[in-house]
């Protein structure tokens, strides 16, 4: 079978559906990044926040025998880390990249330790798929949307809600002002640092949802470092999408489509080195960060603590 033949036989709807699923945690990270960074706080700790959420989700879901309880606990854990990152960045004016790195290292360390100490034999209860016997059979849309993980749906909704919040509500207006020119926001009577804290917490909550995807949808168990850099890919997507939800979401597909394609090709037995294809997202991330960054415009006050 030659490649052209295979390419003709691939089910592209199925492929897109897989890419959408895989994009879920990345998009959550990207959305989280958008809230934090639009308010002026660099958040490279998303990876660590996702990881801690993945672990806590797993552990609590097993204990409570409830994926919902696990989900809430995971989000709370990620928000605690986000709160610490906020405290370091906003209150103590630590370098925000350093603070985010500390979050990542801490999350990797603590989850790795707990994994070795407690193991992860039991499997966690899954979150349900959103599946509808009738809608499922609608061509294209059915495959894309109506037999998919709950959290993917949540992600799609958050993409829309985030767009509205950021660009059509007072909250969003204030958030953007605080990230662009905090002094102007301050003189307009807006509590700059409170806005920043709250947006960093929102970013933690979103990263928490992203982390839950790994343990409550994908594998129902925890393995160390299972987020495998997807928080960083999310940041790349955020930059690619110019700190705007819908474009950032579309950018995540750019990262996940190659991998989905690799999966398909392998199924057809095409002798493509899978390993090579699965490095594609990371390669794209590096290229994005090196190249596109220069053309995108981050919020002007990004990374600068506000001091009166």
């Amino acid at each position: 079978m030659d490649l052209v033949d295979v390419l003709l036989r691939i089910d592209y709807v199925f492929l897109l559906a897989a890419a959408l699923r895989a994009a879920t945690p990345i998009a959550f990270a990207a959305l989280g990044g958008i809230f934090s960074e639009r308010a002026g706080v660099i958040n490279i700790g998303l990876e660590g926040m996702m990881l801690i959420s993945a672990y806590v989700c797993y552990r609590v879901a097993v204990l409570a025998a409830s994926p919902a309880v696990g989900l809430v606990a995971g989000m709370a854990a990620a928000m605690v880390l986000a709160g610490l990152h906020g405290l370091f960045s906003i209150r103590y004016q630590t370098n925000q990249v350093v603070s985010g790195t500390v979050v990542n290292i801490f999350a990797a360390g603590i989850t790795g330790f707990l994994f070795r100490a407690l193991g992860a034999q039991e499997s966690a209860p899954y979150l349900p798929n959103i599946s509808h016997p009738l809608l499922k059979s609608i061509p294209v849309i059915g495959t894309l949307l109506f037999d998919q993980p709950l959290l993917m749906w949540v992600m799609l909704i958050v993409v829309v809600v985030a767009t509205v919040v950021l660009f059509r509500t007072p909250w969003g207006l204030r958030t953007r002002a605080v990230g662009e020119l905090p002094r102007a926001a301050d003189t307009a009577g807006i509590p700059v640092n409170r806005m920043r804290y709250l947006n960093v917490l929102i970013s933690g909550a979103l990263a928490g949802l992203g982390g839950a995807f790994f343990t409550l949808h994908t594998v129902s168990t925890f393995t160390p470092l299972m987020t495998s850099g997807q928080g960083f890919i999310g940041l790349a997507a955020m930059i690619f999408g110019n700190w705007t939800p819908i474009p950032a979401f579309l950018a995540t597909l750019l990262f996940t489509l190659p991998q989905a394609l690799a999966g398909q090709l392998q199924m057809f037995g095409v002798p493509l080195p899978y390993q090579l294809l699965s490095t594609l997202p990371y390669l794209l991330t590096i290229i994005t960060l090196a190249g596109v960054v220069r053309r995108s415009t981050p919020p002007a006050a990004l990374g600068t603590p506000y001091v009166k």
Partner: protein
Amino acid sequence: MTRPDVVLEMRGITKRFPGVLANDHINLDLRKGEVHALLGENGAGKSTLMNILYGLYQPDAGEIWLDGRRVTIHSPRDAIALGIGMVHQHFMLVPTLTVTENIILGLETRRGLLLDEATPQQRIRQISRDFGLEIDPEAYVKDLPVGVQQRVEIVKALYRNARVLVLDEPTAVLTPLEVESLFSTLRALVKRGVSVIFISHKLKEVKAIADRITVLRQGRVVGSTTPAEAGEAQLASMMVGRPVILKVDKSPAQPGPVVLSVRDVKAMSDRRAMALQGVSFDVRAGEIVGIAGVEGNGQTELVEVITGLRQPLAGQVLLCGQPLPAWSPRAAIDRGMSHIPEDRYKYGIVAAYSLAINLVLSVFHRPPFSRNGLLQRRAILSNAERLVEEFDIRAPHAEVPIGKLSGGNQQKAVVAREFSRPMKLLVAAQPTRGVDVGSIEFIHKRIVQARDAGAAVLLVSAELDEIMALSDRILVMFGGRIVGERDGRTARREDIGLLMMGKV
């Protein structure tokens, strides 16, 4: 307690920053419907006092009374609620937001959960009509010229129902015509009962607009007067604390051969817009050519191209007939160019280095300051001592980090360094920005001396008075082009002002 027509009274306001007493028991009262000018040199404490009034700083001591009631202002939010509005020296507008968004920020109206922009826009248009403040509510602030941004700031304050309006150095960024229109707006405001505090260090303007004048020096009130009582010279000496000569003494220029020749230079700005659209002119030995223009019309890029800090897209810069290699400040320096840069902190000094090192920044690699790859401390220090003496730089000693000196002394150090080399061409960009009147006098005198010694001088300044006082020839820049040339002896302010706005 207070007289009925006094709206605002600040009593005994004291504010200390590390190492400076910015406000020292300041008393100030503002009457209903007056324009009260706060006059003082850079660093006198004017902005600090107003930032206290606006709740951005907390005073260490003192009281604020509004309408006969004592108030405490913890934050701008409190100030806004009390009817105090402020147009800051550096505008507080978010460039990426629209005019409407900037104005309603913090006071948003909603429709359901969403932002309502239609209702505020009606009010903005109303205010804009009432006071002759023409603005487009839907424009993005980043696309607006500074003059318009200032109108947005004023509308923003009025939208918040300000009864007391503070304007911090509002004319610094305006052309003479825009200043006129600002003044007529202020007159309209005052007629409606708004009280205005107008901060400036420009005597002419203060005399033109103020009902009363309070002069600040080194954190203290040195006197209160009215325009009718005090002349310009008197106000200047109150500001400085000694008599000052406002006029620059200079004999007619005796131009020699062409030293600098700029040939059809085109260049982009940092924001990748065409900043120079083909600029050509000559500067001869022994003349001062002044470039007038509102900031942001290509002057910065022009100076950068000439001094080798920016790569032009097209065109040539010739120094004494030889093309200068683009993008090489050292080549420019080696061939006799001196440069007083517009942004002192970015290009003029290394703030953390000592005064002595800063005084040799352009020549440290040559003997006697460096031998066999090693810096010669003794030579560097004795050079510093000589320049400190000659240029009257006030510093505790030559090894103090230059960042610790006042703006005026930093600038004198830059001037000293640039004048200490043999000089064929002097490029002076905003040479007296943020500098006290005493130092301005000194720097102006040295520039004229350089000319008389046969140097060609290119002076770029946003201060029209400075251009008028020093230039033998005046070129006006607008939109990246030279739009006019006038003889320095016969040029009229109004005429140059029109050219600066592109009205040829």
